[in-house]
């Protein structure tokens, strides 16, 4: 019972506030033994992924099948975390709030369900991806300050490097000034996934939405990105990523 009463502080520097961390010497011992027998796997040339040059983009293609299996496990993990323990969902939402506050978003609505977990997974990837992409651009790297510029960066540079194709469309919402729609006719992550009818409002491309959101946040365009299925006869997996910018972004855009 005491576990549930203590507040969950995900990134606290104080270990006694963190859940499930035993106090004093026990974790220290564990980390010592872990470092002596490394779990890292090496290829035959004894070079891990960390030994490669960051700029290496040749032969960097990965197996789609392995990704599909890995992503399938992530979806199942997200499902279990949400439906299994309700308490845990609250913690995840809290975790998410911390991330958002840290990146400057103060007004947002928290989606319910397990797509938030997938979104979070994507968020952590997007944060690193932005840095990597800008680093790879080298001297031609540019700091995007306009909404259209950053959206162009996402639909071309980001999409090309991750999915090897540009996004299929970018539209501005007619009703709301602060909403943009990024269209992907067949998101790579969900190409093998059929969502059951009873969960049809959920979309596994929430993962990609998380990546986009992290990139926007990282460039100081605080926003909420959500994935929505819009199936058509030609493209049954068509997904629209709804990008809703924070007020501050629009105010800045007006000044620029």
């Amino acid at each position, binding site marked *: 019972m005491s576990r549930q009463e203590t507040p969950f502080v995900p990134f606290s520097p104080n270990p006694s506030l963190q859940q499930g961390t035993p106090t004093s010497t026990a974790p220290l011992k564990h980390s010592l033994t872990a470092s002596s027998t490394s779990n890292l796997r090496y290829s035959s040339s004894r070079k891990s992924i960390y030994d490669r040059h960051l700029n290496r983009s040749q032969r960097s293609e990965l197996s789609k*099948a392995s990704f*599909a*299996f890995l*992503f*399938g*496990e992530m*979806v*199942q993990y997200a*499902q279990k975390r949400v439906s299994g323990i309700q308490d845990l969902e609250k913690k995840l939402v809290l975790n998410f709030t911390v991330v958002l506050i840290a990146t400057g978003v103060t007004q947002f609505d928290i989606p319910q369900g397990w797509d938030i977990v997938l979104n979070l997974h994507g968020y952590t990837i997007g944060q690193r991806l932005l840095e990597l992409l800008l680093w790879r651009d080298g001297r031609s790297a540019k700091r995007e300050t306009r909404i259209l510029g950053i959206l162009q960066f996402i639909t071309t540079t980001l999409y090309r490097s991750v999915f090897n194709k540009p996004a299929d469309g970018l539209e501005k919402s007619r009703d709301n000034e602060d909403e943009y729609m990024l269209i992907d006719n067949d998101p790579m992550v969900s190409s*093998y*996934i*059929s*969502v*059951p009818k009873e*969960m049809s409002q959920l979309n*596994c491309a929430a993962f990609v939405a998380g990546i986009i959101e992290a990139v926007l946040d990282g460039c100081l365009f605080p926003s909420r990105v959500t994935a929505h299925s819009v199936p058509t006869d030609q493209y*049954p*997996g068509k997904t629209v990523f709804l990008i809703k910018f924070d007020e501050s972004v629009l105010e800045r855009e007006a000044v620029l």
Partner: protein
Amino acid sequence: MGILSILILNKAGGLIYQRDFNEGLKKLSSNDYLVLAGTFHGVHAITSRISPVPGSGGLEVMESEHFRMQCFQTLTGTKFLIFAQPHQPNIDVIVKRVYELYADYVMKNPFYQIEMPIRCEAFDRNLLAYIQPRQ
């Protein structure tokens, strides 16, 4: 010429998928399909035992005047049954492709529970897209 029907059996002999591709087929009740699958599973086990060749994989093809039935068993024991017209060519290619579609759209779908009936919309769609032009 053409494919009449495709059935998929799990390793316990339960029917997990059934679909007809020919309008003229007489429909069985869903219970009868289950019985058919169970019976075939038993017959397949018997044929693999009574075969004079050691290590036989069991019944593979059955031909009659009106249809030809091809059975393909995967390493994990899942069986694919394909009923086709008697002189359908390249049926082994079709079986391989159906197996591929199964591996892609069923096994890589996180919402599919293993050994349970297949309800994957993407599998249905892609199977139909593959079979229909060949009818």
